């Protein structure tokens, strides 16, 4: 019954607990790290490394329950290989940041809370976390949630860890809901300007077409349709007739969406990308927000809800523009890194953040400064 790793028999976990207790006793900050694929992301990196590489492996996988439970250091590659054998997947498409997912880990995926192209249609990391076993700053191993989809017993603490950047504790084990792969998919392409692309992304989703991902950059919009074979086929035919979209062959479409997901697309990485010295901003806004009044190079995803930007505009201007639209802007990648990579939060929320941090990590040892400089 218990998904809790058995402390006495798991040497990796025993050592981890020991390290955390010592760190707490000596008030020595630690920096939690899985595969290090997202070392670039977040605020400052402080403290002695607390490596989770040894805490790996799938604990249980029940395809008929659509639930997988694995230790935090399990790589996304291992996880996805096991799932694909049974026609299931991580439908929120967490970015793997290279190495085909051999570096990025489950724990890091949850702690960063990042999702890929399917986010707007399929949901985010949080929507698929069913339970987690975590280690708080007192070295207590705590299990929240579980391995069932419907669970309202107690506060939903497991999901609080999604996107927590490790500031609350060490994620040791996670249970995820893993839906089936769609029966069919097809991708289409259309040359259009930004405003029209935003309009079409909204219109097609609202028309109950099986839009699973969408992206626009430099005058080209691409949309991926996923679902029952008949639904995908009829949607594609309808879009071809009504909007003149061109079908992308799978040989082109699959690598395109993968590159967006893993941020290996030219926009993110190619030499000569718009001024590599500029910070890459991630702007999260309501999808209906019109083109942002900001100079620079942009890539739009999630039906308009996620906008990537390289810009000469001041951070203040970028943040104000996002906030006015009802969203927020974060520095996703910058050299040197930005300690205040996230937009500030309201005073009552900051008070709650500080109190929560203290409740999990009284000595303040975990990932200092990785989420906010004051945490």
């Amino acid at each position, binding site marked *: 019954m218990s998904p809790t790793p058995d402390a006495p028999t798991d040497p990796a976990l025993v050592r981890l607990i020991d390290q955390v207790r010592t760190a707490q006793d000596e008030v020595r900050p630690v920096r939690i790290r899985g595969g290090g694929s997202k070392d670039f992301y977040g605020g400052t990196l402080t403290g002695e490394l607390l490596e989770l590489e040894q805490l790996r492996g799938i604990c249980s996988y029940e395809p008929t329950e659509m639930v997988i439970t694995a230790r935090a250091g399990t790589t996304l590659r291992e996880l996805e290989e096991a799932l694909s054998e049974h026609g299931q997947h991580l439908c929120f498409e967490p970015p793997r940041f290279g190495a085909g997912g051999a570096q990025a880990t489950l724990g890091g995926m949850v702690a960063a809370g990042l999702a890929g192209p399917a*986010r707007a249609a399929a949901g985010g990391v949080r929507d698929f976390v069913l339970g987690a076993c975590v280690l708080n700053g007192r070295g207590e191993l705590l299990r929240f949630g579980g391995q069932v989809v*419907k669970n309202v017993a107690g506060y939903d603490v497991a999901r609080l860890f999604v996107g927590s950047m490790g500031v609350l504790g060490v994620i040791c084990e996670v249970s995820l809901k893993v839906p089936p792969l769609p029966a069919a998919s097809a991708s289409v392409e259309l040359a259009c300007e930004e405003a029209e692309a935003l309009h079409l992304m909204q219109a097609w989703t609202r028309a109950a077409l099986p839009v699973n991902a969408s992206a626009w950059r430099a005058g080209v919009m691409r949309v991926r349709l996923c679902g029952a074979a008949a639904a995908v086929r009829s949607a594609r035919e309808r879009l071809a007739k009504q909007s003149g979209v061109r079908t992308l062959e799978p040989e082109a479409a699959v690598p395109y969406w993968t590159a967006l997901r893993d941020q290996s697309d030219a926009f993110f990485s190619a030499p000569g990308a718009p001024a590599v010295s500029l910070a890459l901003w991630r702007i999260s806004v309501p999808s209906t927000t019109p083109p942002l009044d900001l100079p620079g190079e942009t890539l739009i995803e999630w039906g308009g809800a996620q906008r990537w930007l390289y810009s000469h505009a001041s951070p203040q201007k970028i943040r104000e523009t996002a906030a006015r639209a009802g969203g927020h802007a974060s520095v996703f990648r910058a050299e040197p890194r930005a300690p205040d990579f996230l937009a500030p939060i309201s005073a009552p929320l900051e008070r*709650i953040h500080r*109190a929560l941090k203290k409740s999990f990590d009284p000595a303040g040892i975990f990932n200092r400064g990785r989420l906010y400089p004051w945490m």
Partner: protein
Amino acid sequence: MNTQVQSDPHAAAAWVARQAEVMAALSKVLPREALLHRREDTVAYECDALTAYRRAPMLVALPESEVQVSAVLKTCHALGVAIVARGAGTGLSGGALPHEQGVTLSLARLNRILRIDPTARTATVQCGVRNLAISDAAAPFDLYYAPDPSSQIACTIGGNVAENSGGVHCLKYGLTLHNVLRIKGYTADGEMVEFGSEALDAPGLDLLPLVVGSEGMLAVVTQVTVRLTPKPQTARCIMASFDSVETAGSAVANIIAAGIIPAGLELMDRPMTAAVENFVHAGYDLQAAAILLCESDGTVEEVDEEVERMRSVLERCGATRLEVSADEEQRLRFWSGRKNAFPASGRISPDYMCMDSTIPRKRLAEMLRAIEKMEQKYGLRCVNVFHAGDGNLHPLILFDANDPDQLHRCELFGAEILETSVRLGGTVSGEHGVGVEKLNSMCVQFSAAELEQMLAIKRAFDPDGLLNPGKAVPTLHRCAEYGKMHVHRGLLPFAELPRF
């Protein structure tokens, strides 16, 4: 006034004085008619749909605006008065049970739909708007709000947020959490807070999943932005009979294994089927040991394709009878029994107690066998409906509340179902919440350290413990008294606490 207070003249005098003090303070921020203090006026608020638990509140406040909600909270915070937020009172776990020294904050008057945005497919509504009213308002745009708890005609979105309510269709469309983008509310000291945003995420820790399902203990929710879903073009339902619960259970597993996520996947056992057939005359197969309802929705092509796949899996899994709805009328008839499971049970027994645990789907047959044994053990009948797709059980234990011994046996029966669910890898509440009803069972599911962490989270939001105190998370002291805290990692829990 409760009986304990009534029986002690000093306590009674103190209670009356306190009531007058709080009443005077609240009268400065609320109009006179928005405050109820007479017993005959507050009696309507003494319980929610878990009627076995009743308690009179000290006062009932009925604010009409968010400004008034904030003012009530500030006033109560200054006086150290507990606040129990309440929507429509349809909760099944006693989450809205009043506090005898507290104010019940009825949010039913905050019932305005603020904005429907068909392009963004969102609705922003006040907390007192009824679940179904959101879908009604979105209907002209061919959109609806997907989570559909069976009380959706009456229950409010604020209550849905407090309980993270589910419904028949949440297997495919998710729970309340998956359909809420943003919550506006007030902390215990009356400060405005927003969780989530109209974008797909918000900066900082994601507090939205913590607040959704927190049973009014972390903040008072006044405004909710929900995601709307395009209405499916069509829906069809398969009704399949099985000659054992094992084969029905394995059919459920095989549907999922085939990569199908039905819009609904519900199971009823034979006694339940007999009860509902008697009530709705839908033509259910009374010979079947279990009946499975399996629904597909989407475009016409999609549904045709999926129904064929479902049919072939069900046939392969040994369905003894199988009918596919030919039209909407027939589909609704298939569902009529399932939707009337609770009233039908009310007709065959003076009272029933509805359980709400979740177990891994594969343990379904095992669970039903265990419940059969418990029927013998406690000498009470139990009928079963089951959200089979997501493992959420609703056993209805039949009893007569006028017989104290039956009530007692029923409570023991219920507790054993919950404990068995935890042992099978499940949870004590799938969608109804813990409230006061399942506080003891929480001691079985969580360790002392886990409960203490939850209590610490509560303090982080509400340091003085004024929001719905005593609900959802049991104190360690209570668990020690219950004596059921599970032994965690070989350590005796609460070794430091006195035992009684």
